[in-house]
């Protein structure tokens, strides 16, 4: 702005909170020079629901429904993170069948979440059809969830001590059928997008996230793996029973939007693989261990993290021996991932900014909680 030679006035624009590509209620104040974005300042908190405050006033089992709402695209994983942390806090052993069911659900939800991401990402790039295809598959997964726990989005499925419901008997055939057709659906997406020159041009080399920046900003999940870091908590710090399954961690090379896309698409296949293994190896037996409403974990604190679809999700629970947590801090992936946007988004066109935002897979309730 100050250099006379370059005097093209910069335009200060509010992008959001109601903007089609901010995926909810995020506001980006951007400074643009023509089409180029020179400065980004994210404003969040439009969805700050004070869940951490609420947690201090809920019994441990009562808090599970709230975890659904922290990451509504991947509620199962959010449930999982919480119950794993709570069980660790109270040293609760859970039946093996429950572990398997949890893994099946978590991985299915990972698929669903990645599908939502794919949908919104492609619609950010202007392609509407993949959006609807992805949602079509997501519906199939939601059917599975619905028949298991009765809800389509806020499952409240995992409980401290196991899972809330056993799977019904029509679950398995439907799941197997889904697993059978799903790879061909992924092929459809790939045909539509992966090598489409327009798509390539829109994503290759766009929003490159170097490893170092990713480290500094604690980026996690597929966005981190897109930058070529082989880091997945399912492998690095296996929780639940992930060490029993055989799956790969896809990683990218450049760290651009295309890599992040590719990583997620491969994770779809990997997750399907895990689900298949889990359903094959599903043991019988009990599926939950009753934990009373006024469950009192011993005094102490626990920090436990899991790999949610968007990255590292962790619960830091401090218990003072009462049925209610003393303090609960929820660490979410989007909170950290969004912070790199101002770094990797500048000096791109506004269209790229949209693509980058989409490729990072930010979900606002996770940021705001």
């Amino acid at each position, binding site marked *: 702005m100050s250099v006379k030679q370059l005097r093209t006035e910069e335009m*200060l624009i509010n992008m959001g909170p109601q903007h089609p590509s901010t995926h909810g209620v995020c506001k980006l104040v951007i400074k643009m020079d*023509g089409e180029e974005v020179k400065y980004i300042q994210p404003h969040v908190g439009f969805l700050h629901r004070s869940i951490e405050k609420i947690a201090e006033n809920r019994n441990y089992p009562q808090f599970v429904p709230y975890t659904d709402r922290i990451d509504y695209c991947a509620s199962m994983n959010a449930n999982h993170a919480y119950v794993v942390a709570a069980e660790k806090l109270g040293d609760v052993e859970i039946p093996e069948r429950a572990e398997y069911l949890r893994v099946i659900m978590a991985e299915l939800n990972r698929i669903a979440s990645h599908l939502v991401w794919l949908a919104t990402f492609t619609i950010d790039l202007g392609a509407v059809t993949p959006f609807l295809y992805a949602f079509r598959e997501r519906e199939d997964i939601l059917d599975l969830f619905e028949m298991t726990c009765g809800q389509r989005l806020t499952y409240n499925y995992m409980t401290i001590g196991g899972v809330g419901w056993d799977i019904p008997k029509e679950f398995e055939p439907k799941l197997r059928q889904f697993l059978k057709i799903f790879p061909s659906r992924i092929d459809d997406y790939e045909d539509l997008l992966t090598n489409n020159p327009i798509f390539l041009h829109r994503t290759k080399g766009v929003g490159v996230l170097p490893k170092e920046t990713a480290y500094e900003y604690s980026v996690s999940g597929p966005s981190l793996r897109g930058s070529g870091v082989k880091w997945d908590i399912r492998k690095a710090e296996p929780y639940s029973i992930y060490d029993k399954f055989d799956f790969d961690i896809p990683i990218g090379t450049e760290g651009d939007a295309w890599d992040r896309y590719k990583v997620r698409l491969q994770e779809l296949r990997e997750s399907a693989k895990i689900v298949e293994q889990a359903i094959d190896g599903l043991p019988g037996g009990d599926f939950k261990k009753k934990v009373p409403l006024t469950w009192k974990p011993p005094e102490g604190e626990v920090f436990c993290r899991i790999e949610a679809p968007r990255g590292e999700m962790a619960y830091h629970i401090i218990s003072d021996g009462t049925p209610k947590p003393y303090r609960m801090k929820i660490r979410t992936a989007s909170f950290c991932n969004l912070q790199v946007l101002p770094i990797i988004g500048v000096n791109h066109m506004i269209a790229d900014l949209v693509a980058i935002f989409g490729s990072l897979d930010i979900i606002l309730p996770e940021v705001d909680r």
Partner: protein
Amino acid sequence: MPDRFAGRLTALEMFGNYAYTGIWLLIGVGFVLVTFWFASLIRPQRPNPTKLENYECGEMPLSASYLQFNVKYYIFALIFVIFDVEVVFLFPWAVVYNSLGLFALIEMLVFLLILIFGLAYAWKKGALQWV
């Protein structure tokens, strides 16, 4: 000149040809304005200060909208004008090309090449580069 052009126009026809354009212009403008007028009869009109404010994603506008734009748009317009002129010259040439033959081709090649050189220059200079 091929036969089909001969004597196709009379004075009135020439005028009449474009009289249509003129009258259609009136029809078009009339149609739109009448629609607007008609809509104004049946639509509500309830302005309020916020409604009349510019939309900016649910926030109040941050700064004035009329501001200086990036020069890149301008450079494209500039190249466009030059090439538009060229197109204008190409049209009459194309019509008579077949009857004039090689000579016309060479002339036009020279013309084109000079401009293609211009394009190449612009390319090289990075004028076609947005960023």
